[in-house]
């Protein structure tokens, strides 16, 4: 079976009155199974092995840095008065933002019956889980005495004799992010069970069969099971969609509920949510473009999928740009001295270099997606999404650091400089993320086979019975 796209087969062109095919070529159900399973069943490619070794080494370095931090104390970071929320919080918000696209692609696109989601949702959900794992690490080690992080939980403590303070956005954040992580994990795993059963049934090796057998919980594909499964899946999607919005809203409350100039604004929740979707879609594309090439999934992750995602990036990127403008307008319109100063300081103060990096990457670079040529050329998309990732990291840096480094008392102002531990942890968190993602590519079904087959079934049905009849 050839995996190359047949010449002239381009599903990114709109044909009026006809649905563009989402599965390309002369593909049948078994081809989908083969295409997806070969990723996990063949021997790992050289690229995968090298990528894994590099990621794994970075992960080890991350672990060592965390041990060093726990042993020495949070002073190893660049967090100094007045910037007590340095890179750890920047990294936390960055990763949590990335973590939002996975569930959003899955849940919202599922609810809107956007069938093009089927071939990308699995990898996007996996990305969510791994990004949330990276995100969760940072506040966990940022609490100072990380071994007492369980004090955040509302449990009847024999040491403290008190309860957590439920009026604090930081505690809401604990609940929001842990709920989000849990629900995303359930959603991801549940979606994978039928495909894990496919893996089980194809296993030749006894142990492999047993491992996938346990993971797939004895799934048979019974229609009664499918009926309840689809209901549960739709319900989970319906919960996950507002959850995505609530979680990043609450993350923005960490800032917006405080009194710090530049943070204390009501625009933060929608602005953060748009930014999260923006960065998440960018990260999905950054991962999927090399993946489809290396893993041979071009027939399932098509140009049309990328075209659609680029449009979402264009839309959310413009929203983010609008939010930047609105912030400036409100700072002027509100006529609060401290707010006016905070925003002028952002754009023209000592961190102007970071601010204009952010504007270039987040507002200007996605505008290139107005051109169809760019939206359908993978290497161009890849470069722009890398810019977006960088820009979104800088957005969190600009928000966190510029506001804190110059707030109400000029005598307390200081310039933030990161230490080597800050750098190591940012890079190391990518090690954690990539290690998990590469393992996922090898061990789990990277594409939702069952759903792709059902999309194909519809395609076949339409071909055989014509349009307009259902």
């Amino acid at each position, binding site marked *: 079976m050839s995996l190359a796209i047949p010449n002239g087969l381009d599903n990114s062109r709109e044909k009026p009155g006809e649905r563009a095919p989402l599965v390309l070529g002369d593909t049948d159900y078994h081809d989908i199974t083969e295409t997806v399973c070969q990723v996990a069943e063949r021997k790992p490619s050289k690229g995968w092995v090298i990528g894994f070794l590099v990621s794994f080494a970075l992960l080890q370095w991350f672990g060592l840095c965390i041990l060093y931090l726990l042993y020495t104390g949070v002073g190893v970071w660049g967090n100094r008065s007045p910037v007590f929320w340095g890179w750890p919080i920047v990294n936390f918000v960055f990763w949590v933002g990335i973590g939002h696209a996975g569930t959003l692609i899955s849940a919202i696109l599922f609810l809107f019956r956007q069938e093009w989601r089927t071939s990308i949702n699995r990898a996007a959900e996996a990305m969510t889980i791994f990004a949330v794992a990276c995100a969760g690490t940072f506040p966990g080690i940022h609490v100072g005495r990380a071994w007492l992080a369980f004090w955040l939980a509302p449990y009847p403590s024999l040491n403290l004799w008190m309860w957590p*303070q439920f009026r604090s956005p930081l505690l809401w954040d604990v609940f*929001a992010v842990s709920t989000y992580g849990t629900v995303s994990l359930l959603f991801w795993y549940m979606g994978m069970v039928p495909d894990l059963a496919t893996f089980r049934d194809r296993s030749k090796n006894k142990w492999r069969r047993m491992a996938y057998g346990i993971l797939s919980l004895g799934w048979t594909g019974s229609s009664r099971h499918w009926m309840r499964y689809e209901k549960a899946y739709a319900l989970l999607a319906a919960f996950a969609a507002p959850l995505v919005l609530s979680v990043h809203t609450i993350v923005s409350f960490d800032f917006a509920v405080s009194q710090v100039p530049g943070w204390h604004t009501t625009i933060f929740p929608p602005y953060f949510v748009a930014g999260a979707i923006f960065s998440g879609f960018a990260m999905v594309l950054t991962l999927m473009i090399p993946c489809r090439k290396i893993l041979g999934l071009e027939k399932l992750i098509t140009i049309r999928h990328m075209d659609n995602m680029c449009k979402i990036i264009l839309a959310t990127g413009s929203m983010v740009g609008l939010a930047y403008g609105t912030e400036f307008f409100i700072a002027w319109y509100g006529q609060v001295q401290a707010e006016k100063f905070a925003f002028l300081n952002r754009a023209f103060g000592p961190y102007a270099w970071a601010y204009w990096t952010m504007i270039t990457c987040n507002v200007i670079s996605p505008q290139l997606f107005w051109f169809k040529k760019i939206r359908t050329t993978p290497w161009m998309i890849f470069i722009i999404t890398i810019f977006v990732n960088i820009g979104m990291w800088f957005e969190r840096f600009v928000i966190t650091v510029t506001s804190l480094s110059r707030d109400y008392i000029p005598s307390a102002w200081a310039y933030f400089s990161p230490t080597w531990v800050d750098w190591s942890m940012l890079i190391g968190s990518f090690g954690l993320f990539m290690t998990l993602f590469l393992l996922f590519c090898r061990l789990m079904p990277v594409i939702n086979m069952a759903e792709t087959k059902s999309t194909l079934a519809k395609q076949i049905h339409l071909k055989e019975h014509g349009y307009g009849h259902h």
Partner: protein
Amino acid sequence: MSENNEKKVHGLVAEYTSVDTLLDACRRVRDAGYKKTDAFAPFPVHGIDKALGIKPTILPWIVLACGLAGTTTGLAMQIWMNSIDYKYIISGKPYLSLPAFIPVAYELTILFASFGAFFGMWALNGLPRFSNPIFTDPRFDRATDDRFFLYIDAKDDKYDEGSIRSLFGETTTDYIQTVVDDDSSPKVPKGIFVAWAAVASFSVIPLLIVLKMRVTNSPMPRFHVFFDMDFSPAKDAQQTSTLFADGRAMRRDVPGTVARGEIFTDMDFMTGIDMDLLTEMNAAKAEQLVSTFNNPHFLQDDEEINVEKPEELEIDEPAPPTSESVMDTTPWLKKNPMPIDAKLLKQGKAQFEIYCAVCHGLNGGGNGLVNRRAQKILAATWIPPSKLNQPGLMQDVYPDGKMFSTISNGIRKMPGYSAQIKTKDRWAIVAYVRALQRSQNANIDQVPDEKREEILIEQEEVKQKLKEQAEAEAKAAEEAAQKN
């Protein structure tokens, strides 16, 4: 087929290659009146519920109940914890401020509802179920790939193999097979079981250790995994520190400030010396003393400080004999400048017992705990503390001012206590030492008449107790000797 006949038959299955043929077969089976049927497909087949007559699920109701339970739990938890059991005052808001409780209640609603959907679905589906007769069919592996199967259970009221075979024969299938019992061993492989048992039993060990530590007493100090703030490394006054540019562990007062309760204008009161007399005798010396007190840092800021000195300081001999003469010639204040009353003596007693008694003893007899310990280990450089009731320290030869100065600046091995004890307290100690001196050399006639009786009775009681104690000790010693 012959071997299958010996096993229990669970039902009959037929294989299809497309959605349309499967749906067609389903409709026929439903119309033929079979109830205990099922279809297996690699993906959810649109319209199969109707074709097979599957009833809708009650799952949404379970999820609704779980979601409501989540809301209730979230609100009840927060209201109980923050408004009833442990009331927090935050920004002057009421204890029960509902808007602030909404985010967590909302998250818990979603969490519980999701648990309901996830676990409820598996429970209704009867999964996980790892051993299923349908898996014995050799072609069933393709049910998760590209084949569709229709199954009729043997428990169906109308079940009859022959008629079902002919019914299946009318549909587009070329594979019809009975489903039989799984004859593979239901036992878990021994290796897995052993590994599981080993992990389970080893994982209990740390828990048992923690439990033992929690419920038993131990003379050993607590085991600290993390030090937290339990041990703060304290420095002595004369030690060095790397934390400050000047290398001193002891921090000086901020220039131009005076500690609370330490502002005095009377130099006599601060030094214990009659300054008028000293000025007459030695004007230069008096001026130097005044300037020293006005600049309590003793060193000028631009003076260099040698940090690397502590080793030399250790072999410091008692003050040279010349200082004795200074001690004798200085015009000390003869009398304690504080008004002597019961309150002052009580204050002096408290301070004496804190700072002085460890060496000089509670009664000033010179045999405090430190001295006893030093005698016991025969410390070579030890100079025993003075007996405060010796004739040389009485008021007539050792004026109050001199004693005050000794407490403040130290003598021989004794360090100065001006840094630890406030000026007024040092005078209170002087007054108390005078009282101790009188009490140690007193006889009963010096006690006021009304107190005499009381003291005699107390004296008798103490003597009696001492006698009893001595007898008991003697007896114990005798018994011990007999045992040996």
